[in-house]
């Protein structure tokens, strides 16, 4: 299979990669870059576990081919924590007990980050709309909403 050369920035780090024309961004992240924080739950864009941020937008990385995102800036869950510590969203997810099994958590964090990046003061309904594509079978979602609300408040300060 012909390989395509792409250049992507992932969590601030530049990568020059040779990828197959059918290679999903999810596989590039998990298999090539070993960023296994991004999860595969359904492979058809229904569960949101593979959500990452591509150029400020939350996308299902199982539905995106790596070749399509050449030149893009990508953020995964591994990119949230910085030298100055955990991101306010991560802190809030811990503080509000928004994590149970943790499999949906990376995708939830990414969808929430995309929301807060464009709308720093979301209403509860806007939070629900932003996270509608992320399934969670453990938490019943309430503490996830609480966490996003808390992060929005903390971040705003």
């Amino acid at each position, binding site marked *: 299979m012909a390989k395509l050369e792409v250049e992507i920035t992932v969590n601030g780090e530049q990568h020059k990669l040779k990828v197959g024309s059918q290679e999903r961004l999810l596989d590039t992240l998990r298999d090539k870059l070993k960023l*296994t924080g991004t*999860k595969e*739950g359904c492979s058809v864009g229904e569960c949101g576990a593979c959500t990452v941020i591509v150029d400020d937008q939350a996308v299902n990385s199982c539905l995106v081919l790596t070749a399509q995102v050449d030149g893009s800036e990508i953020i995964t869950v591994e990119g949230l924590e910085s030298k100055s510590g955990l991101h306010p969203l991560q802190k809030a997810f811990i503080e509000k007990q928004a994590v149970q099994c943790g*499999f949906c958590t990376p995708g939830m964090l990414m969808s929430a980050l995309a929301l807060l990046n464009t709308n720093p003061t979301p209403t509860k309904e806007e939070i629900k709309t932003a996270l*509608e594509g992320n*399934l969670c079978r453990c938490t019943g979602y309430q503490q996830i909403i609480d966490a996003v609300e808390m992060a929005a408040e903390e971040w705003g300060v």
Partner: protein
Amino acid sequence: MAFKHVNKGVRRVDAYEKVTGKAKFGADLEFANMLHAKVLRTEYPHAEIKKIETAAAEGMPGVKGVFTAKDIPNNLFGVIVQDQQVLADKKVLLAGDGVAMAVAETEAQAAAALEKIEVEYRELEGIFDPLESRKEGALKLHPEKDDNQVIHHPLRKGDVEKGFAEADVILEREYTTQFIEHSYLEPEAVVVVPNGENHLVSVYGSIQNPYATRNAVSAVLEVELAEVRVIQNHIGGSFGGKDEVVSAMAARAAVMALKTGRPVKMVNSREESFTESYKRHPYHLTYKIGATKEGKLTAMEIEAVADSGGYACQTPFVTWRSVVQATGPYEVENVKTDTYGYYTNNPYTGAMRGYGSPQVIFAQESLMDELAAELGLEPVELRKRNMYSQGSVTASGQKLERHTVSLNEVMTKAMEAIDYKKKYEEYSGEQPGDKKKGIGLSISFRGCSLGAEAIDAAASVIQINKDGSVAVYSGLAENGQGLKTIFSQIAAEVLGVPMSEVEFKELDTSFTPDSGSTVASRATLIGGNAIKDAAEKLKGRIMDFAADKYDFKAEQLELKDGFLYDGQGNRLATFADLTGEMGNTGILMSAYGWYKSPPISWDEEKGSGNPYFTYVYGCQIAEVEVDTGTGELNVLNMAAAHDVGRAINPENVKGQIYGGVMMGLGYGIMEELEVRDGVIQGTNFHDYMIPTIKDMPDIKPVIVENPDPDGPFGAKSIGEPTLELGSAAIANAVAHASGRRIRSLPLNLERVLIGRALHKGGK
């Protein structure tokens, strides 16, 4: 009692790795030289295997082996009945049975090899309804058995004929429930590493019950338990689901790992997971109930028929829980209950959160509202006249006296939380327009832990290192529910150390003793007691040593915040210095903890005895809006009050309640795994809908605490009770709003609008 760590909403000890992506789940694991494997599954629900041709597959690029039943040392396994095959040999019994497997350098190569395997089948007639399967002369699905019956649990109390003769009102009703997919977000994944670290095989992955998986792998490989090591850490949800299906996966991977001498990884796609995993049992329930005109129950006669699918799996125990809970939490003098499970060629059914209770509660709590309407009583009033109170005797003849029977308290608190009385009155009046509101409730009692299913004991190990750090090991597994945190809190509480000093370690069957399975909402209760036991043993040693060293009586000393205090509040030593010195003196600073449940009893012939040593009580109330013009059902608010004995971590308990209520909501109004002639219709989340964040009602969790004498710090159970009540509460609210009584789950658009499912023969 003033607690330092227990009864506090402390943060989860495993949250950091989960919010940073550092937590490694099964599919994230990699080992040097690792191979990948895939399973070929049949599409036929019942067929004879005439021939399997693997030669072409074996020659495919990257392929290291193709295997069938003949390659499996012992092909039979099963937790209760050994009737399940690792790979089908002569016959397939359900669409999804594995028939062959291929292992290759890459997953794609393994999948490509499957395409080249040729299987010749002779299709057989199938049975897809347990009511057909039970008929005399029905085709026998397991020829070695007398008939298709997996199990029958009878229960007899008093004389139902006499009871019905005393009744002024008798109702007979039928209810049905559906197949449910666990829908854990993480599809099953295992890696088996051969010949390492003094074990024949080491098994890693998304394993709910490491000891059950070890049993299965050792039985299949025909090797000693000590040769099989199972290591469990992070698992992406289970809810009862990652037991037998993962054991089969681990056994297959283990066979291939030994054949190839290399680590073998298997990861299911979502479609493979839907196809192969076991489901929640659909039930067909027939209830007959008698009551006096004053609303006193006189008799109940119940028949529950469960679809076991192709294998027995956990049907014998699932249906046993049904028999204990079938009458609900009501005093009834005369009871006759028969619970059955039958083989069919449907997907097999096993453990799922609730375990045989959600089905009977849907029926019996719907029936109570139907009876209340018939008697002209309010639903709450009928319940109050019959429900258990302190000292009540259950259908099996158990007197409820060792613990607090708190039904009235949970019901009252749930009603207050949602403003039930006002809303009930308001919605009972005339409502103009198509949109009608209603409110409904349901209550339950639930036996904690395994009960008479099996020996109920668990172990722990606590080790204090020379720097005062505390390592905690448990034989029960974190499944996402928060076990690591709860057990760490209990250890910290007893030892008087900060939570930061406690390190919960991954479960390794080569180190921690067999503690049975992490099921039946037993972890906090049974496992928590085992943690407490180990911590108290160590604390005893520390106190004895300190009393001697500082010349105090042991009871005058206190361990708190990582220090040893005398009775006057003076610090004598740090925990680290003290325990370090003990270690250097040659004192053993590790302890095994063990807890075995108090005695229980069960007479299987009569269905009598004390099946559980304690119970929990719950009440859930749903407020709904029904559009009678379109059938659209909107659950607006729910209140959930649960007596947990003592909340070790109230924030965690709330998380269990929110999650359980939402899973119950899915069960009640949207989820239905459609199975047509044994074949699942739609094997991913675009066909099978689970609740999203937009389906959330406003949920009010109410934690009720009546400490149990047998629980660690009084704690009991919360995981399963949270999901067993919702469907009945919603069905009752829908009936209250619209006047339409729906007796089949789920209450989807068509059932709410026209009273039945749209498909042919739909109920």
